């Protein structure tokens, strides 16, 4: 079976700004991939090229084995800049989008009702879009992207502006769709959500791909090689004792978290060092320090010259 998304050497330039530099990316069918990057990194430009809203200057782009223009009915897209017809009723708006997506009229209204129920928006079908709150409108747009049961789902910042309760509803829906076998390409700023949901993350900065790895691998690659412990005795004495161990490079008391952060020597093994430290200092709690996707993001972006400035007109 062909990949859901194949991007080979795709680039896009706006005047003097390279919004996307030659970029390769393959998304296997059924994958849930997080597209990460700072503002103006080129994420939305890349997504717009995937959706064939704009043409790449060079490179090859295949969606579900063909041209995205011919696959629109098989792709669900929630753009970053999204909107509704304010004066249209919710049901009429979704009916219209469904028809554009090739759904037959018969049974469409029942399908809409089912989706509104699923994302916890009952009773809004006959309301005008302008009568809904921003969060509710966002959920209606979410339904508009998924109404036609797409094989590939492209979501650009789907949770931005949502309260935690509504964000959770949409996250659960995305996870359910993933379990059903849909391929999901998700752009987000919220690293915790990406870490929680995605199998793989792609990080782009200044239009360039700087990370493309499974989430676990990315976290492991940027493991801090450190151990955090909560001492049961005097923290200063504990620090002094820990510094005597050969595997410890430094030990630092962090009163704000009531922990001692122990940085390990480059050659030291984290698991055997953990046993040695536990034997050296009595501790209430001891664990290998975890790195978050947020840390990975910041470190990688800083290592690649900081985040980009917003490019000129039309670029993401």
């Amino acid at each position: 079976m062909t990949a859901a998304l194949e991007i080979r050497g795709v680039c896009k330039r706006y005047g003097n700004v390279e919004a996307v530099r030659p970029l390769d990316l393959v998304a296997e069918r059924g994958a849930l991939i997080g597209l990460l990057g700072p503002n103006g990194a080129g994420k939305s430009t890349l997504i717009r090229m995937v959706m064939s809203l704009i043409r790449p200057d060079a490179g090859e782009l295949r969606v579900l084995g063909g041209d995205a223009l011919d696959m629109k009915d098989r792709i669900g897209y929630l753009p970053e800049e999204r909107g509704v017809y304010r004066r249209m009723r919710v049901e009429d708006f979704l009916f219209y989008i469904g028809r554009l997506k090739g759904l037959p009229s018969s049974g469409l209204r029942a399908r809409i009702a089912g989706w509104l129920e699923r994302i916890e928006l009952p009773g809004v079908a006959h309301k005008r879009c302008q009568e809904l709150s921003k969060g509710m409108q966002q959920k209606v747009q979410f339904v508009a992207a998924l109404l036609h049961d797409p094989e590939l789902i492209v979501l650009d910042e789907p949770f931005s502006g949502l309260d935690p309760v509504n964000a959770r509803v949409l996250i659960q829906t995305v996870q359910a769709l993933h379990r059903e076998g849909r391929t999901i390409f998700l752009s987000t700023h919220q690293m915790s959500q990406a870490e929680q949901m995605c199998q793989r993350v792609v990080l782009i900065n200044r239009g360039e791909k700087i990370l493309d790895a499974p989430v676990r691998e990315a976290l492991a690659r940027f493991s801090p090689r450190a151990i955090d412990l909560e001492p049961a005795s005097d923290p200063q004495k504990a620090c002094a004792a820990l510094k005597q161990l050969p595997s410890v490079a430094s030990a630092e008391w962090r009163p704000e978290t009531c922990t001692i952060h122990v940085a390990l020597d480059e050659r030291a093994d984290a698991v055997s060092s953990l046993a040695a430290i536990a034997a050296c200092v009595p501790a209430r709690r001891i664990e290998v320090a975890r790195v978050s996707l947020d840390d990975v993001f910041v470190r990688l972006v800083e290592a690649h010259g900081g985040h980009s400035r917003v490019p000129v007109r039309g670029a993401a």
Partner: protein
Amino acid sequence: MTGEHRTTSGRMGRIGAIAAREFKQTVLTKSFIFGALVLPVIMIGIGALVPLLVGGTTPPVVGTLVVADKDGSVAEQMRLAFDAMRATGKVAISPSDTMPPPMPMGGLGGVPMPDDPPVDITVMRIALDADLQREQTRVQSGEILGLVEIPAALLQSAPPAGVDISVLVPTASPAKTTAMIGRIAREATVTARVAAAGGDLAAARALLSPPSAATARVSNEGQRSRERFEIRMILPGAFMFLMWIASFTSANQLLTSTIEEKSSKVIEVLLSATSPLELLAGKILGQSLVSLVMLGMYGIAGMVGLTLLAVTDLVDVPTILLFVVWFLLGYFMCAAMMAAVGSAVSDLREAQTLVSPVMLLMMMPMMLWLPISENPTGILATVTSFIPPIGPFVMVLRTMGAVEGIPAWQVGAALFTNAIGAIALVWLGARIFRIGILMQGKPPTPLELLRWARAR
């Protein structure tokens, strides 16, 4: 897993869905129903009702009019006139009949003008040397309708210049009443003067009455066609205005709906489901249906009007069919330009700069209306017929106005050049639309628009 439910209607289905939404969202709005249906009906209603209401409520002029003249001849003529008006009542006469009909028995005939109120006026004659000051006091008090003083010099065969009839009326006298008294007094003076000179006014008027001219135009082939003012000037103008309003209203609607889709950010959702060209095609098609509804509505009203005036022979079926063809060509060009402008800007204020040249172009047929109606087969009319986007409007003026007919080759050539123009403008509009629709930020310059049109 997925895809079983999809239909194969494809591109045409999407265009149809967009057109249907565009049509419904325009026609089923209060503003359209009010602006296109209710407002004209109200205006026609007011136009028809006001004269009836005014005519029905005008009180009759009742009272005494004192006339001071040399020998009573003018007063007698005025009495005859008012008596006749009282007997005749308010009857309509042809507005073009500016000459009064011959007067029987040397009198005025008492034929009222269309604006005259109903009258019941008694004329009381007094001598010129009577107490006019006392009569003036009666006028001031409203006891009498007025005092008319006819200087004796006005009854001479050659009345001196600078001598006028004096008409005194109360301050509150209605304008129509004073105008009527003045007119009757002038005509009565002339009648009395002619009678005093021993002449026959009725015979003189009959001699002076100009005959009507039956003008016909002779074509190169020797065919005669009757000259009709309403055909040459009014009817072509009416059809051209109808076409202009219908096409421009819909094209303007296209502009605002495109801007609304951009500003509400719904455009990217739409473009994830359809291509810019399909979107543009659907929108143009939907609005064309709106304009056809307007055209049909006003067209039917116009035909009812022509039927009531018994001049349906002025418009035949082939002319109407050709009119629809010209309308569609004109509409598509206008719509393509407006959609391109709408796609390139973010709000209506920004659109003004780009709409101005389009408006200027669209106003051209208005400016050409009179010269082309005057000479629908002249060089100006012929040349402008072939120039898009004004060609279709000019051709409507010509085909409706040229009673001698337009050479078939010119109709064919105009159809060809304007069809090419429509295709080119729709293509150009689509090229701009596909780029502009996703653009944000400052509006483009005309040069940038051309660059978009050339872009891959």
